[in-house]
């Protein structure tokens, strides 16, 4: 395992993850859905490679960020996209 950890905030709660972790993986570790679908269903990453866009979330205030192509950075804030 990498020695270094980074702290990010998932829906306001802090979580420590290995440096280099994908944000989509961190959301799964925090049991937080990436987004809520148009009929109100919680969704998490499906394809893991930037194709399906199910992993969209709000990252540092930016909507529709693909969390499976975003590397966790210290202090990053991610919210489930409504």
């Amino acid at each position: 395992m990498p020695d270094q950890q980074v702290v990010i905030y998932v829906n306001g709660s802090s979580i420590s993850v290995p440096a280099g972790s994908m944000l989509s993986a961190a959301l799964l570790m925090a049991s937080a859905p990436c987004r809520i679908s148009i009929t109100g269903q919680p969704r998490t990453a499906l394809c893991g490679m930037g194709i399906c866009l199910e992993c969209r979330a709000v990252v540092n205030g930016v909507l529709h960020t693909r969390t499976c192509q975003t590397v966790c950075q210290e202090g990053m804030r991610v919210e489930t996209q409504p």
Partner: protein
Amino acid sequence: MKPMDVLVVGAGPAGLAAATAASRNGCRVAVLDDNPAAGGQIWRADITRPHHEDAARSAAIAAFHTSGAALLPGRRIVDVRSPSTLLAEAGGHFETYRWDRLILGTGARERFLPFPGWTLPGVFGAGGLQALVKGGYSVSGKRIVVAGTGPLLLAVAAHLREYGASTITVAEQASALQILPFAVSLMRSPGKLLQGAGYRKALGDTPYQTGCWPISAQGDEELRSVTLTDGKRTWTIECDLLACGFHLAPNTELAQLLGCTLQEGFVRVDTQQQTSVPNIYCAGEPTGIAGVDAAQVQGEIAGLAAADCNPIPTSLLARRAKEAAFGRRLTHAFRLRPEVLKLASQETIVCRCEDVTFGQLQTRSNWTDAKLHTRCGMGPCQGRICGAATEALFGWQPTSVRAPLFPVPVAAFCDETSSLNAPSAR
């Protein structure tokens, strides 16, 4: 004479091989990829095991770096701006890339078939879950069912087990009879045979059940169980995660936008890997699903051809033919049984972006009709997931591909004029 500018899209096995070959032969080469690191999907870096290297991956990446080609990650191609300029989006901004020769190594994605419960959190693509685990998602102690079709299932299950997951079963929809000739043919490819045997060994006592497929996934807010069938009986397995994919579908959107001709869903190329559009080459899965070895040799040929290194060595051409034959056997062995195309119920969501159900789509006559009346395929993935599903389910052919190829922030369009003149344009 000014060196030729070769632009490669995709830093997977095909793109890296192409870039290396072109760069070694005097071209100025840049490789664009939408992911943060090189390797594509099959060679995706594992953040939890940085020193656990795949030998072929290490060799390819080392050769690429030595060749002098430049890697430009985190860039997603969204449009074609002139016959020789591509528009990429990176971090909310546009950049343009000019080329003399263009090589497309855009790879493949998993094909998903809808079944009741497939949208539940806890259900992933097979390669999808593997990518997430490599990205830091811990599956230690999780009970996982791996299902669908294709050789990827075995590789994924073996990988998950290495990470401490309890892989309950691998359900392969293809029958043993269907797979047997393929397995026997691997005798001609000892490397692949050894790899397959290695995965099977790593699986230990996890059963590999052929002629077996998922019919539904259950759970309220997240997955609790999966129901499997072998066509005669059905049974339900309690589990934490389901990794399910039905082989691969090629990423041909950029090739289509560039006007390249497709043949039976794949990019048509000649003996030099050149597409129907002069100076545009394509290598790897978009030309036919055949795996990493095919991608590498096709990439090398495309790189040499783009650098005007003719004739292409016959040894490369022979290897390409051998790998293409492997690809054809692969596709035949893991062809879909009709039952897996009938899993969706009326309420099952087919288009995940717009939450369009199977029932809504059943009354539509084609892809355009479905788009106009239900918004199927009109969400952010732009039909990449539901398009492959409706093609398998209803035989619908997607119509035209339009820019932007991926959703881009409106702000990027606002500063487009300035960035188009920026010196970032190569």
